[in-house]
């Protein structure tokens, strides 16, 4: 196998000394965009090996596989990289009409962690990030880039962004971390 060329590879933005904010690139995952009639969500869950959430914004994590519902008939599925082929095969056998598209290389994951994580995101996200429930995700705009934002924990967010927009998002997070480190 050839060397994968990962955008932002190995990059980290360390915040101030008190570690109110750390920003780093997430480890690679397998990603699929699943489109299916919500009535077929249970059988899709069977194929995925983990149940699908049934509420937009909802997220279910089972044994390292995660399903996030982004729209009425849209889920994004993530799993460890090595499980990608197995998931594709399982869905190939699914009889219900659906679309499963591999988007594993389309996106980059960025983890924003720390007490100031929500504050940092508020610099470029218009909706009320502070009010976002833990364990939910949504598609939104970060400055000028479309992203999927997931709140993994009170102080840990994950940004999923198309790879050519990742530098822009990273650049803004860098500027924002500087403000937060300076306390202004």
């Amino acid at each position, binding site marked *: *196998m*050839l*060397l*994968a*060329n*990962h*955008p932002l590879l190995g990059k980290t933005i360390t915040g101030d000394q008190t570690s109110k904010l750390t920003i780093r690139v997430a480890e690679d995952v397998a990603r699929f*965009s699943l*489109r299916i009639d919500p009535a077929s969500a249970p059988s899709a869950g069977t194929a995925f090996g983990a149940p699908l959430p049934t509420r937009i914004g909802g997220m279910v994590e089972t044994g390292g596989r995660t399903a996030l519902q982004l729209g009425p*008939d849209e889920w994004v599925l993530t799993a460890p990289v090595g499980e990608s082929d197995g998931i594709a095969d399982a869905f190939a056998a699914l009889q219900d*009409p*659906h*679309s*499963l*598209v*591999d*988007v*594993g*290389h*389309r*996106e980059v994951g960025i983890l924003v962690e720390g007490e100031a994580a929500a*504050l940092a995101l*508020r*610099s*470029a*996200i*218009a*909706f*009320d*990030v*502070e*009010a976002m429930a833990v364990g939910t995700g949504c598609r939104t705009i970060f*400055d*000028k*880039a479309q992203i999927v934002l997931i709140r993994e924990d009170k102080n840990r967010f994950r940004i999923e962004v*198309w*790879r*050519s*927009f990742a*530098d*822009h998002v990273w*650049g*803004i997070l860098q*500027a*924002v971390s*500087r*403000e937060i480190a*300076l306390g*202004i």
Partner: protein
Amino acid sequence: MTNFRIAGKGRVNRSRQIRFTFDGVDYAGCEGDTLASALLANGVHLVGRSFKYHRPRGVLTAGSEEPNALVGTDRGNGRSEPNTRATVLEVFDGLKTESQNRWPSLTRDIGAVNDALSMLFSAGFYYKTFMWPKSFWDKVYEPVIRNAAGLGKAPTAPDPDTYASRFAHCDVLVVGGGAAGLAAALEAGRSGASVILCDEQAELGGSLLSEPAAEINGQLAWDWLEDANAALAAMPNVTVLPRTTAIGYYHQNFVGLCQRLTDHLAIVPEGAPRERMWKLRAKQVVLAQGAIEKPLVFAGNDRPGVMLAGAARTYLNRYGVKVGNRVVVVTTHDSAWHAAFDLAQAGVEVAAIVDVRGTVPSQLAAAADALRIRTLIGWTVTGTKGRLRVSSVRVNPVTNGGKVGAAETIACDALLMSGGWTPSVHLFSHTQGSLTWNEDGQMFLPGRGMEECRLAGAGKGRFGLKAAFEDGAAAGAAAAADAGFGAEPAVYHVEGELSFTGVTGRELPTDRDPGHAKAFVDFQNDVMAKDIRLAVREGFKSIEHIKRYTTTGMATDQGKTSNINGLAVASDALKRPIPAVGLTTFRPPYTPTSFGTFAGYNKGALFEVTRKTPIDAWAEENGAAFEPVSLWRRAWYFPQVGEDMHAAVARECKAVRSSLGIFDASTLGKIEIVGPDAAEFMNRMYTNAWTKLAPGRCRYGLLLGEDGFIRDDGVIGRLAHDRFHVTTSTGGAARVLNMMEDYLQTEWPDLKVWLTSTTEQWSVIALQGPNARKLIEPFVEGIDLSEGAFPHMAVATGKICGVPTRLFRVSFTGELGFEINVPARYGRAVWERLFEAGQRFGITPYGTETMHVLRAEKGYIIVGQDTDGTLTPDDAGLGWAIGKTKPDFVGKRSLSRPDMLAKDRKQLVGLLTTDPKTVLEEGAQIVLDPNQPVPMKMVGHVTSSYWSAELGRSIALAVIQGGRSLQGQTVHVPMPDTVHAATITGMVFVDPENTRLSA
């Protein structure tokens, strides 16, 4: 240097001295000073020259409404700004400031000749004077006017500062941190609501900072203020933002706040932004912006040393600065009396209080008597003297009948005036909330609101501290309640209230010719009362027209000190009540705001997203020149040492035609269309027929709009019965996906098909040239690449260099070609592996310019370059791409409209110049007869034009009316220097039989 500081007064930190300069002179100030207070402490009143007449001007106010004291600032390291208001600029060590609009110096200014000639520069001067001769406008009048116009010097160097932005949501936003705002924020904060309190000044308090003697609930004002600050700081649900101006109030309680972060610092931390724009959505808003004092309109009211009484009181009580040694007060309102009292008690000689009213409250007269201040009740001011600073004031008695008596001159070095107070309703006005005229108070007050918003205190005409506190507390509690939090407003006891009655009027009565009085209404734009009266005499009736004709209220201060006075004069001249004259609309921003704040992070590298492919870094390392294509930057050409673009492109073209070129096509838009109805969806969207396209085969797809005009195109591969891999143009990717989604969701929700953008899932490497197959054969697994098994327009999945690939046999060059799709993260590695192995074929990386030349040689169009949104498939020579037997597709019905079938439509054709060395300009117009009179009839234009190394001559594509029927005819392309002749040809210049595609 004279010191005007008074011992024991003010709250600036006298133990912390600040050194700064004004016009090159070194001055000392104190921590907590504004530039205005620090200059006044040094006895400096003259700070600038006026806009139009270059009249000497001083500090008029003590706040952000200042129209006069605009200075240039230099904060070091290239950070300069014109027109900074000295009354809000905080001094810091090393600050350099200078006066504006004067030459050679502030005290001796050549432009002041305009003042002597002021009778010539009346309202509408430009409109009247520069009408004739017309030809003079462009060359003489406009350049001269432009040179003379404008205060200050715009910086010439790029702004070195960075700016920030932040979104915020809260239950209650309180704008203004004076008595009303503090009471509102305390109330809302105690209720548990999330509260943001912003104030434009460096410290909270508003008028309380100028009222140290007032007692609130038994505490002196500043003690109460300290406790209030502490209480707010102790509430985790309250955010206090000083130095933050609410600049605009938009729909659904969206408020823009501009926060000044570092302008006041002598040493700015590395990487610290200068300002931050808060984009705030509040459930409830409380506007507690207070009121702005009105000047009086009389001759000579603009001389340095003439200032608002409230401002003088602020300079005394807050900054410990006396504005003069011998002061006269002129007023129509009680509040100015208190300025006289405070100054007298501080040891300043108050020569007289002139009150234009016939009677005044008896307790004021008694207090003046006690301080032995001379009072002139029912008198008027009719003039001032003093070249660079007021030296005397001319006062006259006015009889009951309105007759102005004999003048008396009183010497003074400061003249304090007050025409009453104007509630600051700007933000409320931004919301389109209506304003109603209050006849008693002679002011506009907020009427019906459009937003979840309430006003409090002086901002809605509730003057006085007790009223402000109680109104603020009530507004804060009500706002919290409306946001879902219970609150019971506190009660406030206030001692030491000011008296707040007064009248408002037009110009003060005078015994002189009002037509010659330099009685200013708008200080910043130099508009006098007589200008407004002239406008009315010339027929202007609406304040909107009067404003534009005279420019009153049109300066950067938006007439904060002048609007009501201007209205009063206009109303008097029109003999109509003020509400019938109207009020101009306030617009954001409330105060001048830097462009940087609006831009936020979007400057420099973050100005706009620059999308880069996974192979972009390789191109950069290998010396590519880049060009922007939509948001992407793409390798344009790869110049070798000594090559210009022309030479590089010729070499790259030759390599592709003779052996092998490699091209990064990753930016191509890609959409995966999946589902049992995928082919049906394709049939409806694209002009072509898809049902019979077998899996493993590709087809050129053409997409129209409903109007029948070409929108996009691309090669589309069918991967399986229910799966298509669609490619779009680079710039069209998002547009096409949106269009498809629109149709799918609104027209055909019954179709079982889904669309997913895969543009960035795949890196695309185009290998083009006769040696393309030979290069990749050893690297490909699982695909038979032989001509029979994998012909032109085939697609297959397999592996290349060990990674998964979707391999397309396609060509945008006319040569044998492949487009290798690999998962994005492997793009660069596969590219490098193929590039290394391709050395034996002289593999040559090429960019978008070469791609354009090669496709033009084959007559392949580029949507958006050869088409412009008015070309049908037939116009573009693509009639063959229409599935004639299909029942429908997007745009089909439009194609049968009569004008779409007209013979003389512009059609895409080839052009060969008579002189083979001439490369036509893209966009050049085409005529049939170059000898016809101008304006000639233009029959089309050049859409693509290149030098073809392959043919050793130029080639071009053009749209020409009825072009296809004019094959072989000569047309002409007139250019500024010459007229080029060219012959209309077919569009395919190289290999018309397409033998190379299958080489």
